[in-house]
Each structure stands twice: as structure tokens, then as C-alpha cells.
């Protein structure tokens, strides 16, 4: 009985001490929040600009080949093309080229007769065409290398400047695009340029065939 009272007597101040300690700690915590913090946190929210995704829908390049101008011989043609890829299938192309023409057989045989001046003999064209990629796939060059390829059908309208006049011209053709790299393409193109001309007496429809190879860059 005695010992239990002793324990109680000893425990009471201990309890009191613990309680007062807790109270004082609570008080200091309360004081801390009321006082301004010693170190001001300097964390500002940053606006992160995510990197842009580069889009490559435009294609630009040059070409060279041979062009046959009806009655006026076959000559070297050179030009440039610019394309915008609308979907994986469809693309819009603007192209322009120029070539020289030769005297007709009639001019050569008759000797003196000249149908055109030197300036009029120059043949230049521009056209606006819509193309569609068919047969996309891979072409294998050797055993280890595969290039993406596509065949495209293309047709459109344009203007031909030849023999002193501008002529409305339809063009129709087919081309092959080989892509050694994502941004580099090699083209082989066959195109028929159709227009009416009345230079040799009566108006007739001429088909002028062009075959060229070219290189283009996507950007």
C-alpha cells in the first residue's frame, strides 16, 4: 500500500512535467506559424514550352530531262517543282520548265522559210497539278537496303508559252518517287502536255511528251 502511494507521488510530477512540456512545444509551434519564415521559398512556377513538332509537308526540287515538242524536235528540258502534301495520298504541285525547239522538217527542207524567230522558238511552261500516290511500298536496293517508294498519277492545268503565244495546256502523267532518306526524294516522271496550236495552217491538238528525273527535298 505504501509503495503504491510512493509510485503515485513520483509519477504525478513526471506527468505534470510531460504535460507542461507538450504545452510549451505546442506554444512554440503556434509561435512559428505567426512569425514570418526565415527563408522565403523562391520557387516560381515555370511555363514550360514543349518542343514543337517539326512538320514536313512541303517538297521543293529541280528536274532535267528530254522533251519532245510536236513538229519541233526533242530537246533538253529543265525546271523546278514545288509541292504541298495534303494527305498521305493527295498532293498539289506547281512546276515550271523550259526547253528549246528545233526547226520543223518543212523549214529544213524548204531551206529559207522560217516559221518562228529565235525567241518564239523557246518553249516554257508552268502548271498546277493534283497528284495521287498509288502503290506505296518499299524498293530493295541490294540485299541490305530498302527505300520507300511510291508511284503517283498526276494531272492538271497550266500555260505554255511557245511560238509567240500563251496556250492553255492540260498535263497528264505518271511518276515514281524513291526516297533514300525521309527528307530526300528522287523522281522519275513522264508527262504529256496537251494544247491546241494553229501555227501550221489549221488548228490541231498536239501531244508533247516529257521525261525527266529530279531531286526534291521535304521541309
Amino acid at each position, binding site marked *: 500500500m505504501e509503495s503504491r502511494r510512493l509510485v503515485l507521488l513520483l509519477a504525478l510530477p513526471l506527468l505534470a512535467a510531460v504535460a507542461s512540456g507538450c504545452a510549451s512545444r505546442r506554444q512554440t509551434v503556434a509561435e512559428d506559424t505567426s512569425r514570418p519564415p526565415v527563408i522565403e521559398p523562391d520557387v516560381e512556377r515555370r511555363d514550360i514550352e514543349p518542343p514543337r513538332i517539326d512538320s514536313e509537308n512541303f517538297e521543293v526540287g529541280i528536274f532535267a530531262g528530254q522533251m519532245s515538242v510536236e513538229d519541233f524536235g526533242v530537246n533538253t528540258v529543265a525546271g523546278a517543282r514545288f509541292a504541298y502534301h495534303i*494527305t498521305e495520298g493527295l498532293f*498539289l504541285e506547281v512546276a515550271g520548265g523550259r526547253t528549246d525547239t528545233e526547226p520543223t522538217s518543212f523549214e529544213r527542207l524548204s531551206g529559207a522559210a522560217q516559221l518562228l524567230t529565235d525567241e518564239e522558238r523557246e518553249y516554257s511552261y508552268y502548271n498546277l497539278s493534283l497528284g495521287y500516290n498509288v502503290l506505296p511500298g518499299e524498293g530493295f536496293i541490294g540485299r541490305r537496303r530498302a527505300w520507300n517508294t511510291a508511284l503517283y498519277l498526276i494531272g492538271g492545268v497550266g500555260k505554255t508559252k511557245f511560238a509567240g503565244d500563251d496556250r492553255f495546256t492540260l498535263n497528264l502523267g505518271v511518276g515514281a518517287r524513291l526516297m533514300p532518306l525521309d527528307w530526300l526524294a528522287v523522281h522519275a516522271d513522264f508527262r504529256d502536255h496537251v494544247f491546241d496550236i494553229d501555227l501550221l495552217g489549221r488548228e490541231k491538238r498536239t501531244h508533247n511528251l516529257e521525261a525527266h528525273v529530279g531531286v526534291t527535298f*521535304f521541309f
Partner: protein
Amino acid sequence: MRSVLVAIALLAALCSTVAAGAERRHREVVIEDPFIELHTGPGRGYPVFYVAERGEQVALLKRRTDWFKVRIPRGQEGWVHRAQLATTLTPDGAPFELPGFSLDDYAERRWEAGVLYGDFGGANAISAYGAFALTPNLSFELWVEQVLGRFSDSTLANLNIVHTLYPDRRWSPYFTLGGGSIHTEPKATLVATDDRTDPLAHAGAGVRVYLTRRFVFRAEYKTYVVFTSRDDNEEIREWKAGVSFFF
């Protein structure tokens, strides 16, 4: 000797900046679809050569039409269709919105350009235009047009104002009013007549149809009055159709 050293140092510096430039950051996304298919090229016809699973983080390198070139952590690079990336997440778990143009952007367009082909009083007409929108309804357009006919060729330049009735809908009619000038050159094989330049005015109506991405179909009918130096003014009817893009 010193100049050679300086040149080499400069070249080295240039090379290092080029290398730093080449090491650009790319947008990273986490795959949310069960898997995505990597094609060898940007089109449905190119074979699938690899499949990346849900949870993998891929870098979006570039885009061509609706195809994205991605690089997966193991280093393979291939082309993925937009549809398979539509549900991807950003690395911190937020849904990732693929950049692109939609009908909403179409309604808020400022700049527009296009090419149209049609018939100008029986002759073939090829035209191009650029437009600037002052308000969603009202825009200014500058046209250049080449008319190639049987007896003469003409070049037109026009400035017109266009009122679009429903700029935020997929289909919308519009009305146009404007003026400009026409330069006509008779064909060289005809009996010599002089080139002439006359002012002209026009009114017209048309329809614009939003197709996809930046791509709009447009068809219109216009009536031109050419104020010739002869006794009578010339009236010409024109219709044309084509495609345009907006920025």
C-alpha cells in the same frame, strides 16, 4: 600558320554548334493505346516493322500529313498514324493533345491562299489568291488570274471584299464584290490588233467547304463588267472551283 590555326578553331567551333543544334529536344509522349505500329514510311502502304507497347515513352520527331515519325527508347524510328497517338499522355500523365488544325481553327483563320480553275466567258482561267480576314465574316482578297482563250489571252488583277455568312460552319455561302483591271493580248496568229488594258468591276457568290486540316474547297460564280474604251461595256460570266489553305 596562325591563320590556319584560327580557321581550324573556327571550324571546330562551328562544328560543335552544329552538333549542339542537331541534338534538339523532342516532344515525348507515353503510349496509352495497347500498342502502336511503326511503319517504315508515312503511309498505310508501308510495312509495319515494329510494335511499341502501352506505357513506353516515345519521342515525336516530325510530322508529314497525318503521320508522325517517332523514336522509341530502344532506338528504332518509324512512322505512326495520328489515330494511334490520339490517346497518348504527356510524361507527367496528362492527356496529350496532338497539334493540328480543326474546324475551330478554320473559324478563326486570318490568312488564306488558294488556287482555282474554271471558265471565264468560254476561255480557260487559272487563278490564285491571297486573303486576309478582318473579322470572321469579312475578308479582303487579292486575285491574280490568267485567262487563256482561243483568240486572246488576258491577265486579271482584282481586289475584292468577301462576306462569309457562316464562318464557323463546315459549309458556308459567301458574297463578293470588287474591282481591278484586265490586260488582253490578242493571239499572234490573228490580224494584228493592239493589246489593251481596261478597268473592271465584279460581283459574285460562292461556297466554301472545310475539308480537313488546313484544306478548304471553294467554288464560285462571278459576273464581270469590263469598262472598255469602245461604245459598249463588256459583260463576262465566270465560274471556277479549287482548293485553298488557311494559316
